[in-house]
């Protein structure tokens, strides 16, 4: 299965590398968020209790995480393309394991999320954002974004395989992206949120990613927060990949 996963991943990475422009274009949106929100909400940090040096420092993890969600939610489109083309059916009649097919899908998504996250961190840094712990904080942030991306790309793959309509993927993105991002600490400190929002944020995976990243980015690293939220995220990502692999059975009932 590991060899099969590698070859299936290799296939998609090669396709990705053939169109490097796509990766660059996907960066436009997070850059816009970074500079738009960075300027628009610049004075938020002056609110009592916000507690951050500069809003840009605070915003970079928010944009990294939002980008991970938004770009991974489109992953199911690729699955629908492969179903329409007959490629998925071709693979399903070879001995390749279903796990390898799904792993490859989420790994490719994880690789592109990792690339985008690193680029956003670097751009944020170039614009003046600073991270007190050297590389450790940004690395934790990128890892959290990968786990979050894996979660949402598996979810998007499930929707692609079961509903097989592009509209449903677009719907997923519209329905989930903004609420999940704004019901988290992406743009606003937790202590300044209304109580009900804080309650939702505590069960929001997007917020788990932020909490664990912010734990590592803090001047004094909060290992507890980082590890607890990071583990929840890891468990959720693994559960969704497993579920997505199981979804092949549902798919095969309808072919």
């Amino acid at each position: 299965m590991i060899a099969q996963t590698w070859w299936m991943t290799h296939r998609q990475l090669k396709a990705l590398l053939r169109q490097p422009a796509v990766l660059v274009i996907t960066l436009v949106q997070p850059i816009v968020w970074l500079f738009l929100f960075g300027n628009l909400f610049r004075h938020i940090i002056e609110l009592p209790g916000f507690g951050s040096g500069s809003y840009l420092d605070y915003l970079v993890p928010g944009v990294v995480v939002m980008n991970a969600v938004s770009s991974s939610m489109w992953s199911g489109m690729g699955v629908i393309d492969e179903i329409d083309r007959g490629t998925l059916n071709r693979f399903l009649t070879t001995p390749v394991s279903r796990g390898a097919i799904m792993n490859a899908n989420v790994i490719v998504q994880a690789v592109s999320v990792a690339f985008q996250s690193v680029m956003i961190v670097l751009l944020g840094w170039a614009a003046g954002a600073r991270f007190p712990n050297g590389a450790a904080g940004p690395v934790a942030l990128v890892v959290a974004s990968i786990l979050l991306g894996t979660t949402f790309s598996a979810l998007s793959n499930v929707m692609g395989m079961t509903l097989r309509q592009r509209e449903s993927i677009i719907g997923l993105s519209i329905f989930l992206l903004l609420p999940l991002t704004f019901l988290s600490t992406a743009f606003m400190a937790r202590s300044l949120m209304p109580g009900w929002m804080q309650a939702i944020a505590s069960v929001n995976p997007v917020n788990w990613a932020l909490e664990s990243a912010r734990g590592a980015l803090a001047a004094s690293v909060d290992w507890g927060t980082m590890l607890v939220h990071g583990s929840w995220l890891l468990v959720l990502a693994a559960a969704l990949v497993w579920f997505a692999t199981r979804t092949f059975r549902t798919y095969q009932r309808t072919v």
Partner: protein
Amino acid sequence: MQIEAHDLVKTYPQGVRALDGLSISIPQATVFGLLGPNGAGKSTAIKILTTLARPDSGRATVAGHDVLAHPDRVRRAIGVVAQRSGTDPMATGRDNLTLQGRLYGLGGTDLKHRVAELLERFDLTDAADRPVRTFSGGMQRRLDVALGLVHAPAVLFLDEPTTGLDPEARTALWAEIERLSADERLTILLTTHYLEEADRLADRLAIVDRGRVVVEGTPDVLKGELRGDAVHVELRSTANEGALRPVIGGVPGIVDVTVDGRRVSARADDGAAAVPGILAALDRAGVAVATVTVARPSLDDVYLRHVGRRFADADRAISHTDDSDADTLVGAGTGGHR
């Protein structure tokens, strides 16, 4: 038997009964054709035999392995060329073939040689390193067949292999399929809605209608069962079937009369000799005739006899998108070779 299916039943969630007790047995090194109009259940049968779909009931073995109990063993033994291409358009032909080989556990120089050999054999060597999206329809289809052969399977499934190809590409692919069955002793299950294709390629064939096999045999035996020649009369206007049948049936030597709108078909031991009698009878009944043709029995006549309607009509009734296609294939089918 390399492929055996017993009583396969499959109903899709929307309540469409795609297979309704389909059974077939295919011995080794046979090209077996499943012939039927679009929607007859051919593709569903292939999906079950290639482990893609599961039947509601019934059982099947392929290359000696049960498709439900040991799908993995079946997958190792079969090559599948599905209706939809399934190639990766962004990857090159060579990459597509190499990946396919790796999924079967091949690798190293063996795989390299196998890929080169297949590219050569399917006349794709020059285009091998171009992305597949730049391939013509015929090249694309040849690559599909090559993909199905990478691991040298014992059984090959070809689902509508030449649909959408121009006549030249179709003939070339037919020659290649004939070579596969002759040289490599492959067992091939071929579905088609081209009568001519079934006639040319299949050692044995089964006509499928509404999810079950209505008749099975070699093309020659099936055509031989039809006595004599087919006589087709095209009328100037639609006739009353009940009134017309005894008129023509009364002509000496005429059997199996069917009336379908303006088209009347019948069988005669000697078609040419029967024509004057038919024309005289129609004239007496006051029915105006547009054309009369006499032909050797074709698979279309076999289809008409067993299913009760013309192949093209059945095809058109189910698929409104494919009219022009259906017309050309009947033209080909009534060409009159025995």
